[in-house]
């Protein structure tokens, strides 16, 4: 006896105003009589403090109350019988009823370190007290409604950045400090989720040979815990732009695809916020670096030069 949920879309992406359709597939060697097939949809924001700037006590009591976005149950079939073999029971349900009073905004699905925004679909076939009910759960992904999307077009403006020995707020290797370097570039900081982050970068000068230039994509999750805001910054993805001591004055393109599920539109809600940053990190060739090869790439080090830029992510149609 098995039960399976299958959604109409392979990528399982739905907008809140859309109807979620699919099939409940039941496989059984004998016929099953039941007291109704029910489908539940549950969307919530789960907040949990695991580390970051939180203290020990906060970690212990760190589970904030989840924020419910949607929670409803519909009956797909009244009580009856399911024949033996494979049965497919189609269903369709509105996540958001047009007239319905909404509990909370439909945030986009997001899986972070401290914040999880998740939408689950659960099917339940109850078979009375004597038998265990059959049930299964599946996650589906919610993306913002078109109606809620940003009206204004994404501005093509780029932020210009430059990295030299003088822009660094952390100590550098003496040869870096004396020899100097200059890397300039520009980058879009308002970015559409379906598009890559684009820009360009040029190494104008560097006395010390460059080992690598990387773009680190970071997420910044903040949770309001009592009076305090607990913020956690974590690395999502690293993309190398230059490998080795590249030619000077050659323009290198910046092209970073945003990983799905790990990113969502920037959210600034009351109890929590999700923001993103990009850190441009230049690693210089150095004997010291080899010893610390496993350290966190965004931690300031003697042989690194870095520049962080805030990144606002939006959903466009």
């Amino acid at each position, binding site marked *: 006896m098995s039960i399976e949920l299958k959604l109409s879309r*392979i*990528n399982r992406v739905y907008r809140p105003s859309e109807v979620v359709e699919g099939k409940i597939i039941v496989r059984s060697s004998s016929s099953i009589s039941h007291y109704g097939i029910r489908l539940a949809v549950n969307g919530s924001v789960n907040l949990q403090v695991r580390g970051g700037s939180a203290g020990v006590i906060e970690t212990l009591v760190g589970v904030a109350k989840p924020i419910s976005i949607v929670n409803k149950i519909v009956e797909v079939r009244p009580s009856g019988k399911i024949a033996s073999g494979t049965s497919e029971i189609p269903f369709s349900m509105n996540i958001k009823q047009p007239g319905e009073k909404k509990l909370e905004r439909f945030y986009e699905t997001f899986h972070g370190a401290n914040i999880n925004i998740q939408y689950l679909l659960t099917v339940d076939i109850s078979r009375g007290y004597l038998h265990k009910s059959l049930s299964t759960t599946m996650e589906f992904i919610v993306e913002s409604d078109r109606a809620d999307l940003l009206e204004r077009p994404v501005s093509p403006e780029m932020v210009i950045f430059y990295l030299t020995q003088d822009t660094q707020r952390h100590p550098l290797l003496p040869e870096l400090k004396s020899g100097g370097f200059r890397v300039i570039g520009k980058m879009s900081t308002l970015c559409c989720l379906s598009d*890559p982050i684009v820009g360009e970068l040029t190494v104008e000068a560097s006395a010390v040979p460059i080992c690598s230039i990387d773009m680190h994509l970071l997420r910044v999750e903040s949770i309001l815990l009592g009076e305090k805001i607990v913020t956690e910054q974590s690395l999502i993805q690293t993309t190398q732009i230059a490998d080795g001591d590249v030619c000077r004055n050659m323009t*290198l393109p910046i092209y970073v695809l945003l*990983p799905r599920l790990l990113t969502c539109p920037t959210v600034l809600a009351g109890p929590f916020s999700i923001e993103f940053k990009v850190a441009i990190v230049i690693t210089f060739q150095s004997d010291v670096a080899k010893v610390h*090869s496993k350290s966190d790439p965004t931690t300031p080090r003697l042989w690194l030069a870095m520049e962080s830029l805030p990144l606002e992510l939006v959903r466009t149609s």
Partner: protein
Amino acid sequence: MEFRPRNYSAEKQAHALPRVRAGDHPLSAPSSLPHLQVEVVDHGDTEFFDPLRRSDNNAEAAREDLVDIETSSGAGLSSEASIQNPSKEWASFKRSLMQRFPVSKTVSTSSMSDVMVKGRKTYEKSSTSMHLEELDDPEKFAEEGGKVITGQEYVSRLHELKAELTRAWHADDRVTSLKISIKVARLLMDTSVLQCYPTLFALATDILDMLGDMVWERIKLKAEFDEDETKFCFLPENFSASDVCSDAKETCNNWFCKIGAVRELLPRIYLELALLPCWRFLVDQPLDSLRRLVMMTRGLADPLASAYCRLYMSHCMRKLPSHDTGCLLTCANDFKIVLMRVISAEETSHGNLSDNKRLLVGLMEPTIEFIMKCIFKNMSERQVGDVLIELGLGDNQVELFGRFPYVSIVLHHLLKQLPSEVVSSRAVEILRLIELSNDDSFDQCLNYRLLGFRLCERSQIDTANAVVDKAIQVIVQYDGLDEYLKVADAYVDIILQNHMDDHLNSILEGISKRACSEEIADDEMATLQSILVKLLSYYKDLEDIFSMNHFLKILDLMYGSSRSIVNMHILDIGIRNGCICDPRTIQFLLEISQALHQDENFGNLKDDTNQPARLISQFVSLVDYGAEMESQLAFLVECRGYFGGIRGLKETLIHSSNCLAIKALKDGNRHLGFVKSCIAFSEVTLPSISPQIRQLNLYLETAEVALLGGLISHSDGLIDSAINSLQILDVLDGSRTPIDADGVLSSIQKLFSLLVMVPGNLEHGVTYLPKNLVLLLNSQSWMTPRMRVKFLCAIVSLLAALSQQNLPYHADNGKLLGNDELFFGDPSYLHELASLCQFVLQNLVDAIQQEPSMTARGSMALEACNCIASSLILSQEISSICSKLIETGKSCLSTNNRYLQSTIQFIDHLSHSSVAV
């Protein structure tokens, strides 16, 4: 038993086909051939059966079929060929790359290649348990340091990876497939194994191409078929992104996202290149992605890695439907910048490092070669100007080749690909550019050389004089022979075509001056050979070569196989014009031949295709001293001394001396002594001729010559020797092929026809020789029944001919007495012939019965019957033999066999006419 009296001349006239003058030579151009054939068939003489002129219906039909196949397959091919060609070209390019840079015995892999070293372990693990962490953390293995594995292991590990990928893909495990592909692409980051990198590249890109094809097919499948595997749409060859359903787009997008998540730049570029054609499912302008990738490649600082990445790029961009030269040009320009960096770095470092740089430049060379090839493929002359400006060679259309230097290795490959019209019209400018571009990346003289060769492609060059003047100016400055020869070699053709004799002289002088002052190395010898061969193929006559200054001097400086090749060309020119009469030429060629013969490499060739031996033989046979026949014979004697070892040459000598004897005979009787000398020369030379059958034939030839000269004792001796050599024939060679046997048989028949002319020897009896031969026949076990029958028939014919009042032909126009004049009418003579004939007939009938094959036995019986009936009068005895033979024929062959019918007719005709007589 009585021989049939024959009048040979009357019979010949009666049976000869009417002769008509032919309009065309049968071997001339076949333009009128079909017409002729039809005419012949129309005559339709059914009595005369020509096996070569069978009705052609079958062949015609077959030919039509063939044409059908060709046209149908041709249509399919033509459209496919254009697509397949680049991939074939790429495959052969990769193969040549691997051959040019073979994997060394051991490879020390650096940290990156943990996939290689840890290979076996990962292989044993089930593919699903492979952790991505292992890929993400190459540094984990850094501490272990470099490991050494054999080159073979390295290659086989890559093959394993390919098999793993195929397996994972067919198991629908896309995640593992992707992981393996990323692993493979990461391998290309490791350029520490310089020498192995091309091989690594070839094998890794092979795997990546395979992935690209599989992904393309899968997405295409998704775009055309729905989940239930029913086709809902057909994507045309030139589909646009809007034709693709969202599901397929989603899958495609997913692939690009997965690749985009790869941290390292190089594998990310490679993987996206592998999937480049898939952009077509998403956007209508995949070129935008390509342009971005071209720019991204600039982020690869390693010169070797970036060069090969650009190589792969130029391969992948050919898979897109639209072509963009712009990307290729950017690639070439970026390549140039990287190379300039490598070269300038060389100046700062010293010693061993520069060797490494040279190796590096060598390894990078194939990439620029390929990119240049792609740039200039299918390019019109009009576009070339723009391209050259884009490549930074010139500022404007007028002055395409600017006045500033260019990286010489890039220039070299550019020059290689430039359309020949551009090369020839801009030759002077290019020369100047080459002069300016002199860096360490490539030898300048090779660019001069290449220009020369490119110019040779066009028959006419307007600026030939200016170009050659400049080239000569350049080479004069070279002290070394090698550079001098390399450049001179390229311009010799132009100099010859434009009759610049002064330049030619100065080049030859330059060569001889430099060659005298230093030892000529092997590769220099090869270039020198090429120059001299060009000269030789240009001149028609040896005289021109003698008149060239320095030529013979240079020739003397040469040695080894190059010398021999040049000698062969000289010899070839020498024998090209037929007879060689000039004593100076003969002496020169004889010396050349001797040098050629003494070269060990050639002398040891023992096969029949031995070119030098063939040339020497031809030379010897073409030598003609005219009236000075004594000198010619002396020459032959000399040749025997020099070239005795050359197989086949002695045959030539014997032929020549026999020809000489005939020539002397034609000149009248006063040279009889000389003829004897010639025969004696042949006689002395003959015993050492090795293949028995050739020896036999030469004995017969010489015997005939002796007979013509009236030297009966010589001819008798030679015929005896011939029979002796026949006798030992099978002792020497047990495994005789049927073709050989046929050859022997025809030689024997030739001997019989010779015997017609030989006067009977009274001492041994007139039938001494035929009798000997019959005895010989019985002692030869290798003779098949078929050969025996032919042999015996020939004896019957011989005996019949000898019995005639007038022999069918005479030696020496009848000056020499034949058996007819000696013995005709002598009853004992006739009796002796008849009794031998009796004996032969018995043998003949027996021999026919021994043939196992029915059809063969039948036709042999008929052949014997024809022979007997035309040789002997059909007495009771003979008639019974004949009818017995016809019975044999009837029992073995079908009744409507034409040979059988005509034989019966012939016998009937003879018996009627004999009754009438």
